[in-house]
């Protein structure tokens, strides 16, 4: 049994973990219900909403545990025990209890995700470094890779590079290359590689199916934003960008075998279709309802705050300390 300051901190952490799960559940429900509605939102507000969704369980966990800590340290023990949300043993922590198991599992989970992401990052860095050894600089931030297949991508967190293969250069016109490189430079300017990586870390804490949906929505939003950025350049029309997109898709389809997995095929096709529809002005994108968003945030905080005691009592009914 631990008592005193350490117990208070361990209990605060336990509260944060349980709150995170409750908020995560609430956000998962929102994502499941509103999944298709995200497609109808304007690009930049949609990106903000997606960031908000992946960040909110962490913020609510900090807010609620902070609230508990504040209440415990600022009120006398009698009013504390009758407060709306309470934790009846804040200054006592049983080491061999479900609290410890919760904390341990949460720490192991976070450590696993972080170690995996960092090791993948290092592997990626190694491969990219090797790849850049075969690249030839052909313009500002732009490198050519000698490969017959058509491909273009942007990578790097601090120093961003756009890569384009000789196959892509050969198969496209100067104007199409301006579209492709304009698109890639837009990704570099917006730090999309870094943002995608951070987003994927935060999205990993949801159920795998929701993680995939969240990443798909973020990918689509980032691609649409980069497509849009190309339109600001002179002599490039939206039909030109859309046509280039389909042409590159056709080149890729000719080189890569079709994927049998229906879900994967739909993912790719949905993203391309949405990008083309967006460029052709066939989507009626609406701004995000700020009031509704605020109501959702307040509801998630209120639900987490009110559910934490119930969860706590339920767990202590099932398991003893």
């Amino acid at each position, binding site marked *: 049994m631990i008592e005193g300051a350490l117990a208070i901190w361990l209990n605060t952490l336990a509260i944060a973990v349980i709150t995170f799960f409750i908020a995560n559940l609430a956000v998962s429900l929102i994502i499941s219900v509103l999944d298709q509605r995200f497609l109808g939102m304007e690009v930049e507000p949609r990106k903000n909403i997606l960031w908000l969704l992946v960040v909110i369980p962490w913020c609510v966990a900090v807010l609620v545990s902070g609230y508990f800590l504040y209440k415990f340290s600022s009120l006398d023990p009698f009013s504390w025990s009758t407060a709306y949300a309470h934790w009846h043993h804040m200054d006592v922590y049983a080491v061999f209890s479900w609290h410890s198991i919760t904390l341990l599992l949460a720490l192991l989970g976070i450590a696993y995700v972080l170690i995996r992401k960092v090791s993948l990052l290092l592997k990626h860095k190694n491969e990219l470094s090797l*790849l850049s050894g075969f690249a030839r600089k052909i313009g500002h931030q732009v490198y050519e890779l000698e490969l017959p297949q058509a*491909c273009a*991508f942007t990578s790097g967190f601090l120093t961003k590079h756009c890569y384009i293969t000789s196959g892509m250069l050969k198969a496209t016109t100067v104007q199409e290359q301006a579209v492709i490189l304009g698109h890639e430079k837009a*990704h570099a300017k917006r730090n999309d590689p870094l943002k995608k990586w951070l987003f994927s870390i935060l999205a990993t804490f949801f159920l795998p199916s929701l993680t995939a949906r969240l990443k798909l929505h973020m990918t689509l939003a980032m691609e649409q934003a980069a497509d849009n950025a190309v339109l600001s350049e002179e002599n490039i029309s939206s*039909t030109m960008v859309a046509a280039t997109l389909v042409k590159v898709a056709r080149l890729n389809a000719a080189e890569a075998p079709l994927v049998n997995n229906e879900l994967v095929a739909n993912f*790719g096709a949905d993203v*391309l279709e949405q990008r083309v529809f967006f460029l*052709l002005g066939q989507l009626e994108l609406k701004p995000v309802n700020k009031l509704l968003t605020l109501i959702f945030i307040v509801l998630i905080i209120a639900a987490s705050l009110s559910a934490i005691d119930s969860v706590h009592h339920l767990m202590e009914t099932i398991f003893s300390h």
Partner: protein
Amino acid sequence: MKLGELEKLVLQYLWQNDSADVKQVFGHFEKTRGGSLNTIQSTLDRLYKKDLLTRHKEGHAFVYQAKVERHELIGQLIKSVTSDFITEDDSSLVAAFSSISKEFNEEQLLKLESLIEQQRLKLGQESK
């Protein structure tokens, strides 16, 4: 994994010549850029440890070969760094113009091309 200038040149040599031992590689570079036999030997060792070369013993010497062809290596590296972060683990690290557009069928592409053509015609008529 970064490749030094000499490592790239040696790899390039082995891509052009199927296999070679250290003396043959040294013989080529002695004429073109100088250097010692030891430098070439350690370069070959480093490339072998980086898993870019295979080697087998013939007599007392190792004979080196490039593990994969240049295009194959570049293709593998691109595939690995751009593997879609939706379907695979993590390529949350790149933003690719084409990586997300690999999986479609002919019908979908034709439908999109026809849509673009219609829009072009519509815009053309409006501007007249």
